[in-house]
């Protein structure tokens, strides 16, 4: 979230789309309800009428996988009716940037497409630069090659008639949603989006969110209270684990995983440190080497020095152009290319797309270590449905982990708040915390490598001192994450002693004098103490629910990021009532003469862009400080699948062609081709759109909720929800067991026949959609009859993230 949970209450209009907040993030509804009581409108767009819809002021449906068409229509509506915040768009976004002549868009393809490799040459999308190397800009937004004009042209095709025939949403509903949400473009009004996996799990996942980000920039909703782009995380610590490099392509703090072509630390830092020649751009990532070197110092301690590139050569590099994501890992495993696998705190046999492929892939392993609270479908895959245990060689080790409340440590919630938790009960039996398991594992591996082995240096040189009295010490780990001064140093006229904690990332250095295991978290555990353990209930002076001394928030306790976009060019808030920050420096002769911001921690403490008398300042910075050029990106030339979002059909679609262009599916989306990757698009065998989701009563693959009798009582069986019309066609009665099948697998479920699903009218024909919860698996309940909905889902995903396309695929429903 760019904002945070409490901040939802400051919104004037809440769009819940791509998430089912009431059911899957019930606590968020405390704040949604509060906003609604204060007069905010709640809009819910979902293929199915949910418990969220029941509480919305406006509900409408769309076919799964058509969100870009829906939102693209909103962009057109905002532009046609001039509902954008002109000052914000012109000055804070790249709307005025001039795009080079190489950029083109035709028949659904952007320029630079390489069909053989399903890849774009992104250099074709570059901005035109002036002699100083600064992007050429026309902030009047009139230049025909400026981003604003290209945007208008790109989305001119997204008229409500065409959008409606793609999404199945009635045109009148489209206009009502567009009108209501676009009203937040007025100054002082804020609109927010609450989205989750309903947007991300698509072949166009990233571009779904890009489309909304464009809307938020046009309406001036980024950086303001009650605004932002807000991802509702599906687990309490998903944000934290992502920040600390859960994913293959990033190091802690969103540094890049080194590529094979980054042959030295210098080459690595050069490659990934952006350069800006614009004196008004803060280009915060120019500090990249300070963060990467501090990370290496944290990995290898005294063994990292300038002479050995701080241990850079000891770390693995990924091959250029190769992908190591979840889908690819299981594809490789299926092809017998992996020998061992740690399934740590996860249940891929049920949670991964195309579960049949995933389960078969596990049988190719020599060994698997399953670290979890209970045995699950993954650890026991070898005795699951369709498996012959005698033919499976995989040796499975189960390491029992304790549950979160049995250990001390932090979680980082969706709103980026790092919150410290004390230990409740002691771990049961011989279960251990993850920290203890990994510390012991590391110690053991070090022991073995001491006896010899290939390339032992990375293991032997690894700093591994996070234990106290033989047990993992979360305080030592948290301090390591924050970082230390490693010698007596003076930075910015302040002196620091060796061994003390670094007060914030502004003091990290690239010369090896500081360590930090995650620069974003530098400031979380300082000489003043553990900031995450704070519990003050006092609000900040602007009284918008920031609670600055309750827990701690990255970066540097800034509760709303991009907050310098919440003020006008003179540093005064667009919204006078719910303001986030305001400039309060002294004024002399119409000029600011001293620097002072009040409210939230500002996104950099520079002067505003203009003085009170309207003169420009040359010591100011643009508000989007993490972007190379300092501007919010309406044009996003860094994405794998295009600088503007474009509607494409999912891998599996009810349509033979895309009504928007000649490109049926995302031309850059990955396609996997094993015999377990059958696809059936526009096929009479699978004419019904399928989707998956969660319910309040269960969690994730159900590992923690299915064995819980009180929760199983509430939702005892996997079900498929369908319209009365589809049920009638198939002679299916409410509550009877039916079979749902896709090209990849099938499962039996209980039919819920409901008015909450309605047939769609798509391209003139009736299209049905059904949905299943993803929480079940054969291991529990003991009947073994309740299986995973991921038996149906395909192995394809977003070209930027490779998140699987679990939210839109094709199925059929059969009466048993």
């Amino acid at each position, binding site marked *: 979230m760019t904002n945070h949970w409490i901040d939802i209450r400051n919104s004037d209009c809440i769009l819940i789309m791509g998430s089912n907040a009431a059911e899957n993030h019930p606590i968020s509804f405390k704040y949604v*309800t509060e906003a609604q009581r204060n007069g905010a409108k709640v809009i819910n767009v979902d293929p199915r009428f949910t*418990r969220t819809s*029941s509480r919305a002021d406006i509900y409408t449906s769309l076919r799964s996988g058509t969100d870009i068409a829906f939102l693209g229509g909103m962009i057109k509506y905002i532009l046609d009716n001039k509902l954008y915040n002109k000052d914000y768009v012109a000055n804070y976004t790249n709307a005025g940037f001039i795009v080079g002549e190489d950029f083109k868009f035709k028949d659904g393809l952007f320029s630079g497409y390489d069909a053989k490799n399903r890849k774009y040459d992104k250099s074709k999308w570059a901005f035109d630069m002036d002699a100083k190397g600064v992007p050429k800009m026309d902030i009047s937004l009139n230049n025909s090659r400026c981003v604003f004009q290209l945007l208008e042209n790109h989305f001119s095709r997204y008229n409500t008639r065409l959008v409606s025939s793609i999404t199945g949403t009635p045109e009148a509903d489209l206009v009502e949603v567009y009108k209501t949400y676009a009203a937040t473009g007025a100054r002082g009004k804020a609109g927010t989006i609450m989205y989750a996996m309903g947007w991300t799990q698509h072949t166009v996942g990233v571009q779904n969110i890009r489309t909304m980000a464009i809307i938020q920039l046009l309406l001036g909703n980024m950086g303001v209270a009650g605004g932002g782009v807000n991802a509702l995380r599906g687990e309490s610590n998903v944000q934290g684990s992502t920040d600390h490099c859960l994913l293959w392509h990033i190091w802690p703090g969103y540094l890049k995983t080194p590529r094979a072509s980054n042959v030295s630390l210098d080459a690595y830092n050069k490659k990934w440190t952006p350069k800006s020649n614009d004196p008004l751009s803060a280009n915060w990532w120019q500090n990249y080497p300070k963060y990467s070197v501090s990370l290496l110092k944290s990995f290898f301690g005294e063994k990292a020095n300038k002479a050995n590139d701080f241990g850079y050569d000891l770390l693995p590099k990924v091959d250029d152009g190769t992908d190591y994501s979840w889908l690819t890992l299981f594809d490789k495993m299926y092809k017998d290319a992996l020998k061992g696998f740690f399934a740590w705190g996860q249940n891929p046999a049920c949670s991964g797309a195309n579960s049949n492929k995933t389960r078969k892939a596990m049988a190719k392993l020599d060994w698997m270590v399953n670290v979890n609270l209970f045995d699950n479908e993954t650890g026991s895959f070898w005795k699951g449905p369709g498996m012959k245990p005698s033919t499976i060689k995989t040796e499975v080790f189960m390491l029992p982990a304790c549950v979160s409340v049995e250990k001390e440590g932090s979680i980082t919630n969706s709103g980026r708040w790092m919150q410290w938790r004390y230990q409740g009960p002691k771990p049961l039996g011989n279960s251990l915390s993850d920290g203890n398991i990994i510390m012991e594992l590391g110690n053991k591996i070090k022991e073995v490598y001491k006896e010899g082995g290939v390339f032992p240096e990375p293991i032997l040189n690894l700093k591994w001192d996070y234990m106290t009295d033989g047990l993992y010490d979360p305080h030592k780990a948290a301090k390591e994450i924050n970082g230390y001064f490693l010698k007596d140093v003076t930075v910015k006229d302040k002196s620091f002693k060796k061994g003390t904690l670094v007060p914030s990332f502004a003091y990290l250095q690239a010369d090896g004098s500081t360590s930090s295991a995650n620069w974003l978290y530098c400031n979380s555990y300082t000489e003043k103490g553990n900031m995450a353990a704070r519990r003050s209930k006092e609000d900040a002076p602007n009284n918008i629910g920031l609670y600055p001394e309750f827990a701690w928030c990255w970066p540097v306790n800034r509760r709303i990021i991009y907050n310098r976009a919440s003020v006008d060019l003179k540093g005064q808030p667009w919204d006078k009532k719910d303001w986030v920050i305001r400039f309060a420096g002294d004024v002399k002769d119409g000029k600011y003469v001293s620097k002072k911001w009040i409210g939230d921690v500002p996104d950099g403490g520079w002067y505003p862009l203009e003085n009170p008398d309207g003169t420009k300042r040359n010591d100011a910075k643009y508000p989007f400080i993490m972007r190379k050029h300092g501007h919010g990106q309406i044009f996003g030339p860094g994405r794998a699948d295009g600088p503007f979002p474009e509607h494409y059909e999912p891998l599996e679609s009810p349509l033979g062609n895309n009504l928007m262009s000649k490109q049926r599916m995302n031309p850059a989306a990955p396609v996997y081709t094993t015999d377990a990757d059958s696809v059936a698009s526009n096929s009479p065998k699978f004419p019904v759109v399928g989707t998956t989701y969660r319910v309040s009563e269960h969690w994730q693959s159900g590992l923690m909720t299915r064995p819980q009798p009180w929760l199983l009582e509430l939702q005892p069986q996997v079900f498929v929800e369908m319209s009365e019309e589809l049920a009638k066609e198939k002679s299916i009665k409410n*509550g009877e067991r039916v079979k749902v099948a896709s090209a990849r697998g099938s499962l039996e479920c209980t039919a819920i026949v409901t008015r909450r699903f309605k047939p769609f009218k798509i391209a003139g024909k009736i299209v049905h959609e059904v949905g299943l919860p993803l929480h079940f698996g054969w291991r529990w309940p003991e009947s073994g009859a309740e299986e995973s909905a991921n038996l149906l889902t395909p192995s394809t995903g977003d070209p930027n993230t490779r998140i699987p396309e679990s939210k839109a695929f094709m199925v059929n429903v059969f009466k048993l």
Partner: protein
Amino acid sequence: MPGKSFFIDTSLCMACKGCQVACKQWHDLPAEKTVNRGTYQNPADLSFVTYKLVRFNETVVDGKLKWLFFSDQCRHCMEPPCEVTAEDPKAIFRDPATGAVLFTADSKDIDTQEVIEACPYNIPRAARDGTLAKCDMCNDRVRNGLLPACVKTCPTGAMNFGDRDEMLVMARKRLATVKKIHPKAKLLDPDDVRVIYLVTEDPMLYHSFAVASNSAFDISRKVALNKLLKPLTRLTAGL
């Protein structure tokens, strides 16, 4: 005796069932073996081991689909027909401090069927041996300064609990606000019960026992005539 009351604002309920689970947890009640019957409502009904149940109903009002949620429980009546019918304070009595209507293990020794039929809200449920059970207002928690478990767990403010006067003020104030958007909104039997629901649609769309039929409370008010009117009570409760 002003005592305590609940205010249940169904216009804020999103049917997370947190109240339902919190109730089982606090009372350490076993889960029932259930199946999916084509609805999110589970278990199907209240029982000897289920005191709190969120009822789900899909309905179309003025051309718009509504999914109505009703977090059902004992109303802790001001003049409880069950208490009157039982005529045995060892089996059914009221806590004078809170107004909670409480069933004891001795309830197996009274005419269970008659008590069940006396309830205008169809709440009490019997074990095989005839012992009766239902919501006890978490009276043990309340007497120790805590909120009932269901109220404590509610994330949206749909479930509220406090001194009766305070709850009545809250309910009437909220009704005035809700009425602006939902003109059909009303409070259900606010003068007769300690569990006051606010609904936005016809109460019968939520649950056939959402409101008591008028005769039920006429009866309970005429305590003196109770014995005489018993057959009639049975008749109305069965509606």
